[in-house]
C-alpha cells in the first residue's frame, strides 16, 4: 500500500496529537506547527503544515485543546442549566447558541413562546450575529496584516454588546432565553438606543468597506485564495456565509424558519459566486448590514404582551427527540435533543458550525502559501469554542 502525502501527514498529526510535543520530523520539506498558541488561530487550534519552501504540501488541523465536553456535561444538568453552558460554545455570538436548544426543548414540550418573546428573541439573535461578525470584519484584516480595522471592530461592537448587556445583563453570556419565552422584558429606552447602535454599525460597515474591502492589497491577498466549489463545500458540511460565498443560496432563517420571526420582515440572503476568501468576507459584510436592517424593522413592530408562555416551574420535558437548527453567526447550529421525560436531557448532540467549517481545511490548504493559510483560516472564520465544544 502506498502511503500518500495526506496519509503521512495524518500520521504526523496523529503522533503530534499523541505526544503533544513539538514536531521535529525532518523530511525533504519542513513541518511547521502553526499553533496551538499562535496569533492567528484565535484560540488554540493547531495546524500541522508540511511545507516545501513557503508552499504548503499538506496541512492538518489538530484540535481538542479546549474541549470541554458539553455534550456530556449537558446530560447531568437540567434544561435551564444547559443554556448556561452552551452560551460558551460560540462566545462571540452567545445568545444565538441558546436559541436552537431552547427551541428544541420547546418543540418537545409543545410550547410556543408568545409573540413578544419571539420578536425580542429574534432581535437579540441578530444582535449577537452583528456582535460576532463585526469582530470578524476587523479580524480578517488583522489576518492579512492590517492592524487598525480590528480596533474599529472592537470599538463599534461595543455598541451592540452594550445593548445586549442592557437587556440581558450579560455582555457575553446572556443566559436570557428560557423555555417558553424570555427571562425578562426589555428595559425602557432600549429600542431607541438599539436603533442608534444599528446606525453606528452601518457607519462601521462603511468604514470597513473603504478601509479593507476596497483596498487593493486586501483584494490581492484574498481574491482567488481558498476557492471552495459549492458541492465540495456542501459535502464537507460548510454552512453560513462560507457556503453562501460559494453561490449556494441557502439560509435557514429564510428556508426553514423555526420559532424566530425572520419571515415577518423584509430582507435578503446574499450570495457571492466566487467562493474565495474575498467572497466570504464580502458576504459577511452584507450580512451585517442586512442584520442591522432586520433589527431595525423588528424594533418597529415588537408586539406587546407577555414574554413567557405558561410553563411549569420545574421543567420536565416529555420523552422524544427533536432536532432544531438555526442560522447562527458562524453557520448552521443545531441541537439534537433526546429526552426521556426527565429533568435532564438524555443526550444532546451539538451540531456546531465551526467544527464542520474547519473540517474542509485539509482539502483547502493544499498548495497554498504560508500567508494564505492564515487568510483562509481567517476567512472561514471559526471560534475555537465552536470547534471544540
Amino acid at each position, binding site marked *: 500500500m502506498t502511503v500518500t502525502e495526506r496519509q503521512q501527514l495524518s500520521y504526523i498529526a496523529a503522533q503530534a496529537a499523541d505526544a503533544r510535543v513539538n514536531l521535529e520530523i525532518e523530511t525533504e520539506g519542513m513541518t511547521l506547527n502553526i499553533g496551538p498558541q499562535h496569533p492567528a488561530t484565535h484560540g488554540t487550534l493547531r495546524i500541522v503544515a508540511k511545507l516545501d519552501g513557503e508552499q504548503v504540501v499538506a496541512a492538518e488541523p489538530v484540535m481538542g485543546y479546549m474541549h470541554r465536553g458539553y455534550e456530556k456535561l449537558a446530560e447531568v444538568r437540567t434544561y435551564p442549566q444547559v443554556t448556561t453552558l452552551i452560551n460558551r460554545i460560540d462566545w462571540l455570538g452567545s445568545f444565538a447558541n441558546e436559541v436552537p436548544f431552547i427551541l428544541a426543548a420547546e418543540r418537545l414540550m409543545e410550547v410556543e413562546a408568545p409573540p413578544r418573546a419571539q420578536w425580542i428573541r429574534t432581535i437579540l439573535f441578530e444582535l449577537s450575529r452583528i456582535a460576532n461578525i463585526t469582530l470578524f470584519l476587523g479580524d480578517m484584516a488583522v489576518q492579512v496584516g492590517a492592524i487598525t480595522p480590528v480596533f474599529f471592530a472592537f470599538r463599534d461592537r461595543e455598541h451592540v454588546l452594550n445593548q445586549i448587556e442592557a437587556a440581558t445583563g450579560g455582555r457575553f453570556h446572556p443566559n436570557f432565553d428560557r423555555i417558553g419565552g424570555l427571562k425578562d*422584558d426589555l428595559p425602557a429606552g432600549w429600542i431607541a438606543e438599539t436603533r442608534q447602535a444599528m446606525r453606528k454599525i452601518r457607519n462601521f460597515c462603511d468604514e470597513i468597506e473603504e478601509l479593507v474591502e476596497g483596498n487593493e492589497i486586501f483584494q490581492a491577498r484574498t481574491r482567488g485564495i481558498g476557492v471552495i466549489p459549492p458541492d465540495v463545500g456542501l459535502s464537507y458540511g460548510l454552512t453560513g456565509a462560507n457556503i453562501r460565498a460559494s453561490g449556494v443560496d441557502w439560509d435557514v432563517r429564510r428556508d426553514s424558519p423555526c420559532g424566530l420571526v425572520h419571515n415577518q420582515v423584509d430582507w435578503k440572503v446574499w450570495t457571492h459566486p466566487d467562493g474565495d476568501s474575498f467572497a466570504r468576507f464580502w458576504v459577511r459584510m452584507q450580512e451585517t448590514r442586512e442584520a442591522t436592517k432586520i433589527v431595525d424593522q423588528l424594533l418597529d413592530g415588537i*408586539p406587546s404582551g407577555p414574554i413567557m408562555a405558561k410553563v411549569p416551574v420545574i421543567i420536565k420535558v416529555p420523552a422524544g427527540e427533536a432536532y432544531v437548527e438555526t442560522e447562527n453567526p458562524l453557520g448552521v447550529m443545531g441541537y439534537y435533543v433526546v429526552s426521556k421525560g426527565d429533568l435532564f436531557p438524555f443526550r444532546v448532540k451539538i451540531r456546531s458550525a465551526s467544527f464542520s467549517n474547519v473540517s474542509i481545511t485539509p482539502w483547502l490548504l493544499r498548495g497554498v502559501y504560508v500567508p494564505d493559510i492564515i487568510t483562509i483560516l481567517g476567512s472561514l472564520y471559526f471560534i475555537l469554542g465552536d470547534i471544540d465544544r
Partner: protein
Amino acid sequence: MSLVPGLVKGLKVTGTTVVRTVFPKRGMRTLMPAPSKGAATVQYPHVKEAPPPRARGVIALHEGNCTACMLCARECPDWCIYIEGHKEKAPPRRAGGKPRQVNILDRFDIDYALCMFCGICVDVCPFEALFWSPEYEFAEPRIADLLHDMSRLSEWMETVPEFEDYESGSVAKKLKVPPT
C-alpha cells in the same frame, strides 16, 4: 472601480479617525485637542464606566430574607453555593403569640472562582434574597479569596440598583428591591 484607489480611501478613513479622536468637538469650531473625549476608551482606574442596572456583576445577598431553603444551591449548575443553617425559636411577633420557628442562616458562601454568572440562583430564589449588582470590582490576587461569605455578599446589597422600568408594550411586573 472608482477613480480613487482604495489605498487612498483607506488612508482617508484612518486619517479622519485621528482627527476625530484628537478634535472631537468639531461642530463648535474648537481646535483644542481633547483626545480623552474623542477616544472610545476610558482611563479605567481614573474614569469608570457605569454598567447598565441589569448588568450581572456580582450576586448580593439580602440576609434577612434568606431562609436557607437551599434552592439556589440545588439549582446552581456549578455547585458553587454553600449554605448551612439551623432552626431557632424566635420571639412571637404579636404579644401573647406563640414563639415562631425560624431558619437561621449560618453560612452562605459563593465561590466566585467557580461561578459562571448565569443568574439561575437569583431567578429561583422564592424569597427575594438574592439580587444582581452591577458592581464588578471584586478581583482578588489569590483564587481562594474569591470565596465570598455572607457578610461580603450582604455588603453588595447596597450597590443593587432599583429595577428599571420596562419598555412600552410590556406587561411584565416590576420588582422591588427590599431596603437593606
